[in-house]
């Protein structure tokens, strides 16, 4: 179920009829098509770079590229709009949600992977069901509940993001713990490590790839979350708003500050794209684990 890194057998082998000499050409065609698609997927984000580097007096010009590039949008991000505060708020929300998810999901995933007990199936069904629900489906309920709690928006957003990313973490950790043989733990307990030692020195390190995947995935989805953030932090001062909401403050009633908006957008997206690359191979199994063998 965990996607392996081993390159998959070449599908071209299926034909077996293609003459060997034509392979290089075919490989080139495949590579060319794949590179082209890769560039198309990157284009919108490269446009963000072009726009962030465009001098403000050229924003009204109908040209694909500006006459020259400037860094001024990046340097002025921090002074006026107070983007630093929003980054701090987003970091708190994403890091807080990640810590809670790990603390809550680790024991649950370990327990369901190692033991068979009454209610286990019901619990896993509950987890699977929550994965199918998104905050948008119950937004009014979330808003009214958390307004009644009277918590600061940042704390509310930490809890909400933790709750909606729990399922992914439980699934992927469950899969990793299940794949570690019980005998390994038992042997190390016999060797004098004890129960806690076996867990911390054998099981957790072996499950590290799953833990890292759960950690990064939760961080990114909390960092990118928009609807609940918008709902719960609407009346806050811009520096108290998470980045996704604060970026929208560059959209005025009559004009949009596109230069700063995209400079801030780059600050918001580039780090998570890099983080995502680390978990790219394993993230699918966490999302589809409940259903696919």
């Amino acid at each position, binding site marked *: 179920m965990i996607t392996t890194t081993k390159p998959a057998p070449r599908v071209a082998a*299926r034909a077996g009829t293609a003459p060997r000499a034509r392979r290089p050409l075919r490989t080139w065609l495949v590579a060319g098509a794949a590179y082209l698609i890769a560039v198309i997927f990157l284009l919108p984000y490269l446009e*963000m770079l072009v726009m962030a580097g465009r001098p403000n007096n050229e924003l009204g010009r109908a040209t694909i590229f500006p006459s020259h590039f400037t860094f001024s949008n990046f340097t002025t991000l921090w002074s006026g709009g107070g983007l630093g505060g929003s980054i701090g708020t987003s970091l708190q929300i994403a890091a807080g949600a990640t810590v809670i998810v790990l603390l809550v999901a680790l024991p*649950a995933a370990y327990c369901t992977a190692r033991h068979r007990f009454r209610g286990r199936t019901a619990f896993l069904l509950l987890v699977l069901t929550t994965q199918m629900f*998104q905050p948008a489906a*119950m937004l*009014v309920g979330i808003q009214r*509940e958390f307004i009644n709690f009277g918590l600061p928006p940042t704390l509310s957003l930490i809890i909400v993001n933790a709750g909606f990313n729990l399922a992914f973490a439980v699934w992927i950790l469950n899969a990793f713990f299940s794949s570690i043989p019980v005998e390994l733990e038992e042997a190390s307990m016999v060797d004098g490590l004890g129960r806690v030692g076996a867990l911390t020195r054998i099981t957790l390190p072996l499950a590290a790839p799953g833990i890292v995947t759960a950690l990064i995935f939760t961080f990114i989805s909390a960092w990118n979350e928009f*609807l609940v953030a918008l709902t719960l932090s609407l009346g806050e001062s811009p520096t108290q708003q998470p980045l996704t909401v604060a970026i929208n403050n560059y959209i005025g009633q009559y004009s949009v500050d596109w230069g700063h908006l995209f400079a801030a957008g780059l600050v918001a997206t580039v780090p998570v794209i890099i983080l995502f690359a680390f978990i790219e191979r394993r993230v699918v199994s966490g999302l589809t684990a*409940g259903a*696919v063998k």
Partner: protein
Amino acid sequence: MPAALRRLNLVRLAPLLWLGPAIALIGVVVLWPVVVMVQSSFQQIGGEGFVAGYNGTKNYAHLFNEPDFVSVLLRTLVWVVVVVAVTVFISLGLAQLFHQQFPGRRVARWALIVPWAASVMMTALIFKWALDPNVGVINVILHHLGVVKQLGSNRADWLGNPTSALAWMMGVAIFVSLPFTTYAILSGLQGIPRDVYEAASIDGATSWKSYLGVTLPLLRPAILVATLINVINVFNSFPIIWEMTRGGPGYETATSTIYMVELKQGDVGQSASMSVINFLLVIVIVLVYLSTTRWKEQVDQ
């Protein structure tokens, strides 16, 4: 034997110690909001959030009588069906392509995930800018190509016209759904043993025939899961339409999620009743999901 009985109960309750925090978190964040939401849908609550009292089924009655209600639901259906169908179709091709061996495959695959990793809100804003009638880069390119005769004209105002706005927004929704779907199908492809293809080629199947006859049926579970996860995501999708048109003009490009958020600004009670209807629709989708997948085998293994 009270002592033994207590021991037995403790053993029985031990899992609760491990699962308790998870159940509590799900309870607070997922289950209780549903209760609050259903309760709110029967209350009279203004845009400011003050409860003015019990409202019976008036919220629902008002909602059903809204002139936009039926068209919003129909639009949501079209939105989900078109976006998911086109996404899965294109992803099947992309997965097949990125499954091949070629130099630089890792880098190319990495580029593929970018729209998935980036926030959908940012992607929506990029396209909103690119479609600006006067200076948006898509319009500038279309102008060079001769498709848009005059920048700033009605023809260039794609997001001002409900039909073209919906088409572009569906395009963005497909764009951001492709990476996950392609990766899900790719992981399905990797699970197909090579000898299956060898057997097919011995039987004389051409590559297209072996794709239809061998690959596609074996991909069925992956396609099914990817489809259903996409249905949920696309149904609940908010940032694209919100950033690009706010559901306007009027409610002419709003799906039910956008409609619910728009209603919330004026009448929370009515918005809650729209939420309940959305929620029931999601439950239907989830039930279909659970009945068509083999989640239980997975759990019991």
